[in-house]
């Protein structure tokens, strides 16, 4: 049965259904509805909810709950996510699962509470100190939030690594019909790394301090090998009308949603535009972009930032193809009509160049 819910509330419901028993959070707009939803829902389901004294405390409570064996999450937006980076780095170093949801707002600094995609680089490059990555999932609808939350917990446990779900203020606040029937409670898995009190087994320690540089290097390589496995196995993306396209838009999340509207208008005008929508921002869908560049030479990156995703597109293309960019930072939400105008201009220019 479908329910009408905000993205924030849907994220919470999906998390609980996926076996999340611990939520720790601190108020920040535009994700407060999630904290409020969890305040009621998690205790009802027999779990732990704490409104923490800070974002730093929240992520460390997540770490504690995770090392104790629970599926735990926290959520925030830009400024609060910056504070959580310390804990995320420790989670990655300790190889502990956790889910962190970021409903991104305009920044830097205090910025504003409008939707933005300005935390792309922070999310995809690790964000905190040290050599590590977080898996980054980017939903583009309320339904997809509900679909990706269980995956976030599964991947976090599978790879013992923090997973970031990167939304934005629009996805958090927007209400859409959403279905949860497909979410199954996870089977309990034995975790041989958690701390339960050393009953009937040798004592365990979970730490990230490794004084010996060779040992630390080996730990880094071990993490790097894990990140390679993730890159091989976990890339997710959606293609939309790419087959006959002359120009391919690359956009994620809310921007991809807007782009889809623009593409419908462009197609009406007879302009062959398609889209690749990364669902995992890290690992990035490099291969499909490379494949596409064999037949299509023009790529149009659209994002609600001053240019972050565009770096990964350029890295993927390795100098091949032409990368056009349109960004709206600062919490501005462009309309499909605006994007239609910008892209059509590029399309006509490409056609002119082709003719000449």
């Amino acid at each position, binding site marked *: 049965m479908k329910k009408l819910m905000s993205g924030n509330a849907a994220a919470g419901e999906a998390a609980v259904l996926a076996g999340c028993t611990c939520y720790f959070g601190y108020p920040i707009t535009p994700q407060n509805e999630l904290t409020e939803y969890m305040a009621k829902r998690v205790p009802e389901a027999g779990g732990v909810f704490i409104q923490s004294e800070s974002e730093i405390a929240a992520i460390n409570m997540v770490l504690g709950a995770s090392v104790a064996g629970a599926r735990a999450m926290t959520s925030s937006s830009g400024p609060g996510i910056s504070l959580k980076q310390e804990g995320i780095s420790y989670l990655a170093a300790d190889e502990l699962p956790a889910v962190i949801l970021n409903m991104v707002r305009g920044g830097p600094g205090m910025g504003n509470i409008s939707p933005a995609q300005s935390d792309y680089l922070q999310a995809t490059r690790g964000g905190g100190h040290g050599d590590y990555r977080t898996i980054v999932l980017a939903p583009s609808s309320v339904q997809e939030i509900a679909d990706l939350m269980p995956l976030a917990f599964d991947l976090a446990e599978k790879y013992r690594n923090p997973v970031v779900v990167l939304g934005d203020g629009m996805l958090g606040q927007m209400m859409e019909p959403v279905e949860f029937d497909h979410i199954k409670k996870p089977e309990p898995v034995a975790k041989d790394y958690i701390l339960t009190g050393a009953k*009937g087994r040798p004592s365990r320690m979970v730490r990230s301090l490794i004084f010996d540089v060779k040992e630390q290097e080996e730990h880094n390589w071990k993490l790097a090998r894990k990140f390679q496995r993730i890159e091989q196995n976990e890339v997710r993306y959606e293609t939309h009308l790419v087959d006959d396209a002359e120009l391919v838009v690359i956009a994620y999340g809310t921007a991809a949603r807007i782009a889809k509207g623009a593409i419908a208008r462009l197609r009406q005008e007879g302009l062959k535009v398609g889209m690749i929508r990364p669902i995992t921002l890290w690992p990035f869908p490099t291969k499909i972009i490379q494949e596409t560049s064999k037949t299509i030479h023009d790529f149009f990156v659209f994002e609600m930032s001053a240019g972050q995703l565009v770096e990964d597109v350029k890295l993927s293309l390795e100098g091949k193809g032409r990368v056009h960019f349109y960004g709206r930072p600062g919490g501005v939400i462009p309309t499909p009509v605006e994007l239609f105008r910008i892209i059509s201009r590029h399309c006509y220019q490409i056609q002119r160049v082709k003719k000449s």
Partner: protein
Amino acid sequence: MKKVYSRPKSLKPAHFHYCPGCGHSIVNRLIAEVIDEMNLGDKIICVAPAGCGMLIYNYFDVDCLESAHGRGAAVATGIKRVRPDNLVVSYQGDGDLAAIGTAESFHAANRGENITIIFVNNGVYGMTGGQMAPTTILDQVTTTTPVGRISEKAGHPVRMCEVLAVLDGTSYLERVAVHKPAAIVATKKALVKAFQHQMNKTGFSMVEILSPCPTNWKMDPLQACKWVEDVMSKQFPIGLVKEVQC
């Protein structure tokens, strides 16, 4: 021959890294003795801090987590809420607990989390080389207070037991020391009491332990013990600060 003294079962056969005359090694041994005597080895989960106490997981043969600097009370909260039947103990120094981790400590205490903090107060940042700590007393010379701590510029030493005592969530707060045999005996009793408070779920418990740091105080071990007695314990009065019915 009768064995009268041996390594507690909960202590691994490892060499302490602590400096000669450091109080940490006494505190570590006391904790291990209490774990053995109260039969908590399979129940306790320890949280190690950043600082001189960091390597306790190399010594305690029990489940241990290393926390980020100052976050001990927050990670202990996460563990305890998931595993309320375990005994969760966070081992922290003065910089960890009362500077970078003040918010986490204060709010865990205020929520009345059923956790125990063992707070080793030696008045300096030991591991980083003897900088001023929140508990450095006035006029005390450290590497960052080269002419002594001056309140107008560097504030006053923080009495954490007294700070936390005003919070309704705290159940047991006692200040002890490890500079002389009688004090060591009292410290062990305080540890037992704190663990009992946690097991009875009466709220937040903390044992603050005044501990000599001869290396960073630039004293020999005997002078350091004397300094705890003559100077430090005047600023941080030894004794029970708060106890609710256990």
